[in-house]
């Protein structure tokens, strides 16, 4: 294949914005987007609530500076302040840009883009399109990429970076339709494959494919991961499936109730109540459950998200998807009765370590969106900042790669290397004596993570988690692939995804074990307070000689001094 200037892995918000921006920056470049699903299926579509931007449409006195402060405070001061500056300053522009391209935002009475309150935000600054914001943004970006003639390789599964020394030669990927392992020699590669929170499996709100493929690829190539231990639990997952009920439901006025009918958030965040930041609200739910104030059911303990007082009209017009989901997956109509909820693993703050221009330590390799970690979310992401992150840093990645592509040469990827990859991925197809089923391993991984590396963490639990993961990795060597065909082998794909999750799970557990403090989403029962003297720094996890190796990186400070974080 002819070498590319830029190969973008992932067709969600970050990947598509990167593609558009790269084409805009230099129309002469040869750019390709690879995605394991059709881009319009990407998980960006599941983001319901909205994207934050200090447009000042709803609250005239809102400012970028307030957005910056809310984000830094929300991050429990682990975000890099210069990166947050970029995120929030670019926000109004990028939301308007999307609007100008055709995103159907909901509107206020003065015909400007509508905004609503969201957790941890001092002003109503979350721009939305009813409760399908991510879906409509993704549609807009996909439409615009089709308009611009972006070259898509749909249903290609990225396997590895091909690396020579400290340089990338490009990407190796499997064409799902043919089972062929193909080379994508490229000057630059942008990894934008989304998050890794699906490793919590049934206790995760994520799509089945959010398996951290991009992070795992980078990790295996020796690129450090940053702050992997910070996994956000969303307070309101549906009890049975872990699927998400957007924070918008609380933004519109929903109550969280325990089995005594009490609005228990009064105990934990008397001012913000249900609209406290996610980590705090999740811990509050978990505490209520642990202290016996949850409801009991065979599917586990849960609490109530009550929308009944909002009325049928508001629920139908502003939260139609929520209503549909809770009817489809819980058999509950929120107009009539409260929705059964419990916290669910939702977002990975950690990711591939990048600078503010999305560069990784490897020449020509960039990462953006949930796949990367700049970091703008620090120890805890605010609702409405993830869509913003993928847009802002997706665009920056596209621009940076386009500007820097000329500096690098596309390496060559040999037939031998492709063959080696092919043999490796198909290794599990040989019948052997004892074998393991990937479904069971995957489920066990989710269980041990939720139990031992979950909302409340503790040294002995984490130790157990680390041992479990090591054991699962050992058992994975015997995993059997039952589908031996070349054509659209989803069995093989799921096994490869499991491998990625296992590799990354190790970094999450290692980071969590090392960090002896509580900060943001990371709560250690044995170290219940934030310890700025020892731990106000990023965790790096790098693969060295087949082992997770811990490192650190200072947090970039700015105008805001460390403060206690209360709501």
């Amino acid at each position, binding site marked *: 294949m002819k070498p590319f200037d830029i190969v973008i892995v992932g067709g969600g918000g970050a990947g598509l914005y990167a593609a558009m921006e790269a084409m805009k920056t230099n129309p002469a470049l040869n750019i390709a987007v690879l995605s394991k*699903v*059709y881009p*319009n*299926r990407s*998980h960006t*579509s*599941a983001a319901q609530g909205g994207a934050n931007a200090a*447009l000042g449409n709803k609250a005239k006195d809102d400012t970028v500076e307030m957005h910056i402060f809310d984000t830094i405070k929300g991050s429990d001061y682990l975000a890099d302040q210069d990166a947050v500056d970029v995120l929030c300053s670019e926000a109004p*522009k*990028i939301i*308007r840009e999307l*609007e*100008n*391209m*055709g995103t*159907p*935002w909901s*509107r206020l009475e*003065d*015909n*400007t883009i509508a905004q609503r309150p969201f957790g941890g935000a001092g002003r109503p600054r979350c721009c939305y*399109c009813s409760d*399908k914001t991510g*879906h*409509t943004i993704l*549609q*807009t970006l996909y*439409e*615009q990429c*089709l*308009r611009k003639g972006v070259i898509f390789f*749909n249903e290609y599964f990225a396997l590895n970076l091909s690396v020579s020394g400290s340089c990338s030669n490009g990407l190796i990927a499997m064409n799902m*339709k043919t089972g062929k392992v193909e080379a994508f020699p490229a000057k630059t590669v942008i990894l934008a494959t989304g998050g890794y929170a699906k490793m919590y499996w049934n206790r995760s709100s994520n*799509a*089945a*494919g959010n398996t951290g493929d991009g992070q795992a690829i980078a990790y295996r190539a020796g690129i450090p991961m940053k702050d992997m231990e910070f996994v956000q639990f969303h307070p309101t997952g549906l009890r*049975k*499936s872990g*699927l998400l009920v957007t924070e918008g439901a609380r933004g519109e006025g929903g109550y969280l109730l325990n089995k005594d009918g009490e609005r228990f958030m009064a105990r934990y965040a008397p001012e913000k109540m249900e609209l406290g930041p996610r980590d705090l609200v999740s811990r509050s739910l978990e505490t209520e459950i642990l202290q016996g104030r949850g409801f009991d*059911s*065979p*599917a586990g303990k849960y609490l109530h998200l009550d929308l009944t007082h909002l009325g049928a009209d508001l629920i139908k017009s502003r939260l139609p998807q929520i209503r*549909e*989901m809770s009817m*489809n*997956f819980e058999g509950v109509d929120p107009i009539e009765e409260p929705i059964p909820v419990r916290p669910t693993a939702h977002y990975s703050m950690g990711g591939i370590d990048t600078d503010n221009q999305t560069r990784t330590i490897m020449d020509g390799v960039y990462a953006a969106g949930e796949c990367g970690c700049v970091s703008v979310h620090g120890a805890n992401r605010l609702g409405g900042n993830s869509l913003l992150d993928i847009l802002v840093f997706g665009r920056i990645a596209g621009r940076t790669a386009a500007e820097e592509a000329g500096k690098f040469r596309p390496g060559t990827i040999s037939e031998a290397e492709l063959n080696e990859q092919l043999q490796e991925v198909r290794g599990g197809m040989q019948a052997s004596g004892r074998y393991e*089923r*990937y*479904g069971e391993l995957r*489920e066990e991984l989710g269980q041990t993570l939720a139990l031992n590396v979950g909302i409340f963490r503790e040294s002995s639990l984490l130790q157990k988690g680390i041992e479990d993961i090591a054991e699962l990795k050992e058992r994975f060597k015997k995993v*059997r*692939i*039952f*589908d031996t*065909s070349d*054509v*659209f*082998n*989803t*069995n093989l794909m799921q096994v490869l995804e499991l491998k990625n999750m296992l590799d990354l799970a190790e970094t999450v557990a290692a980071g969590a074990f090392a960090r002896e403090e509580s900060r943001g989403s990371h709560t250690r029962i044995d170290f219940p307070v934030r310890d700025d003297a020892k731990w106000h720094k990023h965790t790096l996890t790098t693969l060295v000689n087949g082992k997770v190796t811990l490192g650190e990186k200072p947090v970039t400070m700015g105008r805001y001094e460390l403060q206690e974080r209360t709501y």
Partner: protein
Amino acid sequence: MTLPTDQHTEGKKNVTFRVFRFNPQVDSKPYFDDYTIPVERGITVLRSLNYIKEHIDGSVSFRAFCQAGICGSCSMRVNGLSQLACTTQVWDVLAKSREPGIIKVEPLRNLPLIKDLIVDMDPLVGKMVHYSNWIDSTMPEAQMGKKEFLISEEEFLRYDKATDCILCASCVSECSILRANKEYVSPAVLLKSYRMSVDSRDSMHEQRMAELVKDHGVWDCTHCYRCQESCVKSIPIMDAIHGLREDAIESRGKNDTSGSKHAEAFMTDIEKKGKLIEATLPIRTNGVVWTLQNLLPMAMKMIMKRRTPLPPPLVKSVKGIKIFRTMFREMTEHVKQDQKSHKK
């Protein structure tokens, strides 16, 4: 284990999933495999298929991603009807199943088959490109990001429902025109075209419409409503198709294409007689020459074989035609007013 033990008090049912199988590498033609598993209330078709794949037969192939009804990956035909496997409850399907205890699972129709339940979506993407299913903004790229377009709630509501489309292609699979003509634009693409055409930010209305009125385009729909009935997001797709047609006549005139002429002939007949004058309809739609060459031989054959009666020499008006005409005019006036207010 994927199947939860929740609500076990309600018991389990043994359900046989009759799954369409085809692997182009080894199979000369498709066949069905039966998998019988116990299923509780509350379990979806997708969770059942996941269970079969993980525990019984790893080679059963289907797409699935979000598992929450928003990504559109897992659309397939369940007991003959195209829908999302992830939002379809097994017990609900069973209650309506013709064969007790059996659920038949097949790939979508009207798209090329790849393997088992997986079809090729590329043709649909190709049509989205062909019909410019995007906004070509009136704002120059260099100006973007500086200020918002001001858009009324009323305009937003015009395309709000249409933007619910997740491109699952259930409507594509159910479309009766596509079964006969794979080149037909497709309901989803018409829906998206409509969504773009009523957006005041768009600058390529004329160009898109010029493509839509050609063969295989907006006039080929026969109003069977199957797209709308099968839409997993309950989008009124036919309203969008009607909207595009009204738009086509308004912007390009009544005599633009055989499609617009056909629609116009309908209107004239209904106003005059209260019913259709079918014998002359093809002439008014496609002209005398076309009718003589293409339709007359078949009509003659049908009459000879008594499949259709001879056309009556004179078509009488329906009873109460005068009252009907008043109603008809009021209605058309109302529609015109409505269109005007939309334009604002």
